[in-house]
């Protein structure tokens, strides 16, 4: 299963608007996508799961995807995090 590891740079972490954007992006793909932060893993399409990860600024998260569009999904999510959720400082 392909995976990428990225660091959350956004000040609020993977919460609030960044969390919503992350979930909405994941939902565009049919693949099963999961996100791991520390010992906790959540469904990337679940806002409640993502919030409960408690991924703050500078947290490292690993995203794994499985399915037809797994590679595209990973690429899109990685890009979203790298672009600081569209808020480049």
């Amino acid at each position, binding site marked *: 299963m392909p995976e990428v590891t990225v660091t959350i740079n956004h*000040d*609020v*972490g993977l*919460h*609030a*608007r960044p*969390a*919503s954007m992350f*979930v*909405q992006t994941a939902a565009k793909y049919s693949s099963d996508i999961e996100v791991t932060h520390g010992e906790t893993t*959540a*469904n990337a*399409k*679940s*806002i*409640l*799961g993502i*919030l*409960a990860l*408690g991924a*703050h*600024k*500078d947290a490292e998260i690993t995203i794994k995807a499985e399915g037809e569009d797994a590679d595209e999904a990973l690429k899109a999510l990685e890009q979203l995090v790298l672009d600081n959720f569209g808020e480049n*400082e």
Partner: protein
Amino acid sequence: MKSISGIPASYGIAIGPAFVFDRAEIVIETYSIKDPAAEWKRFEEARKKTHLQLDEVYLKTVEESGEETAEIFNAQKLMLEDPELIKSIKTRVEKDLTNIESALYETAESYAQQLEAIDDEYLSARALDIRDVSSRCLRNLLGTTDSPADGLKTPSVIVAKDLTPSDTVLLNKDFVLGFCTAEGGSTSHTAILARGLGIPAVVGAGTEIEDIQNGEDLVIDGDAGEIVINPDPDALKEFRNRQEKFYKIKAEAEDVTHQPAVTTDGHQVEIVANIGNVEGVQAALDAGAEGVGLLRSEFLYLERSSLPSEEEQYQKYKTIADAFGDKPVILRTLDVGGDKDIPYIDMPREANPFLGVRAIRLCLSRPELFKPQLRAALRAGHGNNLKLMFPMVATVDDVIKTKEVLEECRDELKKEGYDVAEEMDIGIMIEIPSAAIMADQLSEVVDFFSIGTNDLSQYTLAADRTNAQVAQSASGFQPAVFRLIKGVIDAAHANGKWVGLCGEMAGELLAIPILLGLGLDEFSMNPPAIPFAKQLIRAISFEHAQQVAQTALNLKSDTEIREYIQIEVPEVNLG
């Protein structure tokens, strides 16, 4: 007449009948179903309806309070479509053959409780959102779409356990005189909304307010954080007078807002504001503040999940300092610990947090926390009148250590090629008795003092100001506290340094004549208090204030002092 105290969340006085915002508890029955497919269809329809409502509420909120506040309703939509949530609801409906209302309620509640269990203020607030959106969907399932907000037909004071974003968006704001809630703090949704609307509010008043009945006469004192139920005629008259006076003086002060506070015999003092965020700047300027005597930097650290970067701090400090041009803005470095906790800063539990590693002690022990703030301040202070102030200094050694770190930061920044403030005034808070006693030596190593009467009183009287049983003793009106203040002012003046006061006392009309008479140079207070303070100072003479202060120092109790001032300086009763 009965009074309840809570947390003052938004200024002013509201008088009017109570409107109890009773979100009729939705009664959820649990029963077995035979046709899960039909049950699921009901859910799909209710969800669709909920989405449409949320879109509407979103637009209405954007109009009323802006996109940022409205964003919460988008998040609520995502919550209701959460695949994990839907999956567990589906299991309950299809496998356990539970009716959809019960399945939805139980699932949402278990998620809410999980979020609440995490020790994080932000996530706890999201628990309220799940409950908000699931009860909206439940009301759609049950066909009970009426909101309690519909009952608000006359100007009233809103009484509620707590208010969700969905609740407040439906309230007709023309009829809202004030808010009081049993739960919530000064950053709760209700508090923020009230300040945005400029309506008085008291929050976190406890379960006692749940006994308030619809239509009962209420007074909300948003300055003192007090709720008065069925005030007797005398009290009501007094509140009405204060309310009237508040608006009258406010109106009068607007005409003279940029004029200085000079006594009848020509003694001028500086009247500045305490502010806690960028939004406070305009309120301070409008109120006639001649600068900022206390910029609490905690705002940058709260309601987030990690430390603010140096860059972010620099931007915010610069915005504020530039807004005041050459008027002074005094930035107080991070004051946490004691009763103020920040979840992502690891602070060990202490038996006596008020006597432990708080404020400057915490900062000195954590350079990674302290240095970015100092660097940001030094950069932001270039080209304006930003000054730095350190909280909870107990000894001369504290100042020397702090100045070393500051110089280190300045050298680093210069090497890195940044523009920095070459001469930035450095001051300290006088809030520990040892600092007050050593004021002569301390005034040799700093440029100014600012007296923090809230802490100085509680440390001097050994009385916890958050403990209602001893809070009276912790009053800043104790002669012991005034004597310490006199010593601090005299010691500083002997060394050619100036003294300000940024505790609540600076804005208390009863205290102003004494502080003025003791020679205080700068009074820093919450913006709404400024017009009143200026008017009072213009109405009295420095000579009289000096005599009054001298007498007050020799009285025996806080009560004696208060009574004496009321009689001796009747202007305090006029505002």
